[in-house]
């Protein structure tokens, strides 16, 4: 019954250029972020062109949350979560300020990141608890430790001159933070798209059992991912501390949710396996630009918040998939009502 040269699965696979392009675009996950960015940029161009002429400022706002978001993306791609990133930022900063030596301080901060990542991974991999819970616990623990270690007061850095230098541009108008952010983006992007281990993160998030069965060392990948995320957060903490010339144990209150928003707007699926570093970058860009633009317009802060919330809500609700879902859900609900009323009328 079968043909001698193999089996026929219907029409031959699409090969034309247009098809190829359509398929490539169809696979991208960044659509929503690109659309949002486009809207934000156009509005900014019309309302407040200063957003562009002062792009280093906009960039550094993007980098502020964006760096943490990049690390978070790695974990989310694996189908896990790290709610402790903001606390890691803070604790790393506090650890950094424990020493007068900047280099040693940075090492301490990054070491803190490694330790936090390992602890998170330990609970997820070895103990086997859900990362949502493990890192929620760590959110409280690390914040508490930061307060305990700092005695709840800001710790100024000894080497203020270096710290202030650190906040100044080094490449053209770009400050070290922006340079590190861009570097982190490039490296992570290459890692996740080109490197074997990075690409396997997608398998770990997309179908963990399949990854295990195929011989991918899933546990090792998870550890790597959690450590990467925490180290990046710790790095962000070190940068914050240097740029501010002091470690603030109460900092980072807005980091967690903003970095989440950036990743999800960027098309990274919380269920894992779907999304990209590029998406997160674009997500961070659209949100950062929006914030800077609103600040510059001088609109009252409360109203700014309403705008930001509104834009976020629209962005997630006007996703093509969301609109499709809404159409069929509405049909379901309406027909449900109609069916019920006819039922009643006739029985």
């Amino acid at each position, binding site marked *: 019954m079968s043909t001698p040269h193999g089996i026929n699965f219907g029409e031959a696979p699409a090969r034309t250029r247009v098809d190829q392009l359509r398929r490539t675009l169809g696979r991208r996950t960044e659509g929503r972020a690109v659309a949002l960015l486009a809207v934000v940029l156009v509005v900014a161009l019309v309302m407040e062109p200063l957003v562009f002429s002062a792009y280093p400022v906009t960039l550094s706002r993007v980098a502020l949350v964006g760096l943490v978001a990049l690390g978070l993306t790695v974990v989310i791609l694996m189908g896990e979560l790290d709610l402790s990133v903001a606390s890691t930022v803070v604790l790393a900063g506090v650890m950094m300020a424990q020493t007068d030596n900047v280099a040693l301080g940075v090492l301490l901060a990054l070491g803190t990141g490694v330790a936090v990542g390992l602890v998170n991974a330990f609970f997820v991999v070895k103990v*086997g*608890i*859900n990362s*949502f*819970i493990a890192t929620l616990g760590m959110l409280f623990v690390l914040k508490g430790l930061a307060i305990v270690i700092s005695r709840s007061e800001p710790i100024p850095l000894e080497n203020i001159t270096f710290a202030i230098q650190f906040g100044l541009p080094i490449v053209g108008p770009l400050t070290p933070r922006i340079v590190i952010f861009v570097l982190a983006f490039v490296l992570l992007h290459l890692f996740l798209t080109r490197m074997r281990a990075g690409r396997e993160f997608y398998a770990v998030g997309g179908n963990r059992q399949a990854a295990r069965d195929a011989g991918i060392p899933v546990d090792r990948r998870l550890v790597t991912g959690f450590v990467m995320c925490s180290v990046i957060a710790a790095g962000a903490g070190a940068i914050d501390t240097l740029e501010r010339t002091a470690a603030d144990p109460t900092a980072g209150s807005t980091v967690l949710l903003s970095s989440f928003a950036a990743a*999800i707007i960027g098309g990274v699926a919380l269920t894992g396996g779907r999304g990209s570093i590029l998406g997160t970058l674009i997500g961070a860009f659209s949100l950062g630009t929006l914030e800077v633009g609103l600040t510059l317009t001088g609109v009252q802060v409360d109203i700014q918040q309403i705008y930001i*919330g509104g834009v976020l*809500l629209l962005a997630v609700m006007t*996703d093509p998939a969301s609109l499709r879902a809404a159409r069929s859900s509405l049909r379901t609900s309406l027909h449900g009502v109609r069916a019920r009323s006819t039922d009643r009328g006739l029985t």
Partner: protein
Amino acid sequence: MNQLAESPTVAAPTAAEPRADGPSIAAKALLWAAERGIVVFTVVLILASVLFVDGFASAVNVADVFHRAAPIGIVAVGMTFVVISGNYLDLSVVAQVATGAVILIGVSNSHSIPIAILVALAVSVVYGLVNGVAVGYFKANAVIVTLSTTYIGLGLLRWLSGGSIFFGPRDGTIESFGDIKLGAVPISAIVLVVVALVLGFLLSRTNFGFVVRAFGSNKEATRLSGVNTPVVVLGAFLITSFAATIAGFVLAAYSNTAVSSMSDGYDFGALAAIIIGGTSVFGGKGSVLRTVLGVVFVSVLTNVLVLSGVGFGWQQVAIGSLIVLAVSVDALARKVSKK
């Protein structure tokens, strides 16, 4: 509470099948404890506190524990619906509690208490509708949706109310209500119990609660069973909003004041209680009683730490560690029993 105690979600041990060769006694004990993890933890903690912490068992202190537990407990009980429906959490409870409190005091100062309550409940319906429609009908991510409504809600609250602190008249109805006590039990705790009883009944013994749990277990299977699933999500968010608004009332009555920042941290605080209680963050499994126990546990713990003069930092460390510990015991017990 009796009715809750009988709720099958808590009482029925899922691994109680008779077996040919069962796990070792130790593993059984661990599993037994894990199944009832939060009950055991809470009882042990309370017993230890009674024995070793001076003043813990006093009437005044019991009231303080209730004060700690009540408002966030009411929020957590409501949010349990959203968590069980598989939608992670509702961040906007922060905005909702504050809105409820500000409206209760602000509007009752200018109009009357019934009008204030009606307005607040109407606003809570709006919250529930926006969150529920976006998540249920548009299938938008619950974290981002409720983050957005938090921004919008707090922005509107501060913009429209001018953001001031509101206080009710001294010895007015609201304050007197907040001062009501039944023995050592303050009114806020009574409200918590009533809300927990009602919502516990709703979750464990009604069709609506049943489909919420089913939806959290498997969305598609529930839909294919003919359930109008978007409405289920909408309902879960409406209930959360309703509870958050009641929590706002309780908070306002307790202090006779309302500020837009008074409920900071209620989002993750409530989630922590829900999780410590043992409700699954993946949805499907859990109960209101478990959430109440989780809240009691955290409140007793915080209370004991304050009584012992432990600083804020260590309090946070202790709460975080216990979240991880409670869930780890459960996970380890499961592992042992599988071996």
